[in-house]
Structure formats: structure tokens, C-alpha cells
């Protein structure tokens, strides 16, 4: 890409980083997928579990 002749060199130190450290404003935060709820003893007894897998 031709951007013409070099004119000068600048030192640019932004006070605020241009790299976001949070999600985009106006968007809900990215949530981790829900972890399975531990089963109660009676529920656990009615499932086959992964022994047959």
C-alpha cells in the first residue's frame, strides 16, 4: 500500500489503552455455560449414569 512520503516520526502514548478490557458496551457480558447442578441422592439413584457409555 502506497501511503506517500514519510514526514516525521511520532511517539504516541495513549492515556487510555485502545485495547478493551471488558465486553462491548451495550452487550451483555459473556457468561460461562452453566455447570450441571449436583443431583440429590434420590435423583442420582434413578439415572443410569455413564456406566453404560
Amino acid at each position, binding site marked *: *500500500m*502506497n*501511503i*506517500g*512520503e*514519510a*514526514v*516525521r*516520526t*511520532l*511517539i*504516541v*502514548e*495513549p*492515556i*487510555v*489503552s*485502545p*485495547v*478493551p*478490557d*471488558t*465486553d*462491548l*458496551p*451495550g*452487550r451483555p457480558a*459473556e457468561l460461562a455455560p452453566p455447570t450441571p447442578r449436583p443431583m440429590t441422592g434420590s435423583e442420582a439413584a434413578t439415572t443410569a449414569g455413564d456406566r453404560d457409555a
Partner: protein
Amino acid sequence: MTLAPDLAAPIAGWRVWNVTDRGRGPELVSPVRPVAWPHRVPTTAVCAGGCRPCPAPECRCGLYATAGVGLAALSHHTGATVLGCAALWGRVVEHTDGWRGEHGYPLVLFVLPVVPGAVELRIRRLRRRRSAALGADELGPRDFGSTETLSRELARLYAVPVHPAAAMPDARFADRGRLAGRADALRAEAAAGVAGRRSGDPLAVDRLARRVQDLLDAIGR
């Protein structure tokens, strides 16, 4: 010796990217060199010729961005998938028509429509060649389902505004008239409002959104 900074806000310039996916979702890559712009961290230029510091005024190294959107629009024929404004900072070499920077991160992006017909065949060949250099497939919007899907994914991963665009600004007219004025206004706001947007100022977010809408209206969405 530490040099006193010349500017306390990033420089914003126009540029284009292609898109790849190396297992972490869509990622921007340079259309010229096999350099990826990673999510949520700055991209830092490295000179293939060994310039230190990079970029050097007498070299051609660094992350490129243009002042006018027209010069960036010319790159669309190489199959660029995304147009946008990028922040450049660190050591920045100013040119008559743009900049070469040490660090970069996108500020606002536009996913471009699929290029039709015969042009696409040539672009596919270019993409295959560039993919080999990058070590990952270079992809187009169709590979992600649609320009809308790709826009949503890029917005989520880079945490910057991303919009589908109906067309690439016509390079012949992009640096003149109403379109040029709106592109310049967007570029200026992208740089000036970065601190406000990062701190969650809704007015700064709204100002950029209005500049984006103005540009989209001018290019025909």
C-alpha cells in the same frame, strides 16, 4: 533515553483485513503479510528486515493505516473481507497519506459483502496462496454463514463495534465529497472518543454510533 510523547491519544487510520480461524474464532489478518491481529491484545509490528525500533522511517515496516478511506478501499480487489479504523500507537511514522505504527488494535469494523463472479475466482487463488503462508485457511463471510454472523462474532471477540456493510466505498469517489467527509468524521471520533468509550461513557458510544450510521448511509446501506 525516554522520549517525551507527542500525542496522548492513538492515531486512527483506515485499513482492510482478511479473516482466518485458527481454532479461536474469526481472527483478522493482514492482507499483505501473514500477520494475525489477535483478540483483546495489541498487535505489535515486527520488521522482516530487522529494524529496531520498528517502524523505521527509511524502511517499509510497521502496521499500515491510511488517512482517506479510498486508499484502503483499493485493497478490496485483493479479497479483503473487513474494512475498519485501527488505532496505532507507540512509535508511529507519519506519511503524507497515512501512517505506519508499532502497535495496533481495531476501533470499529465493517464486514464487506462477498465479491461476485469472476473476481471471486481470482480472490480464491490469492486466498489459497496467503493461507499457505499463514498456516491457516483464509476465510470469507460465507464460511461463517453470513456477513451478519461474522459481524457478531468479531464484535464479541474484539469487543469493538462491527457492522455489516452493503458495499465497499467506491475507491474512485471515497476521498471526495460527502463520503470522504463522513469517513473522516468517523476516523476522528474513533480516535478522540476512545477514552470515553473504554470508560463506558454512553455519550461517547453514541457519538461513534452516529458517525458509523452516517457512513453506512453514504455508502448505501
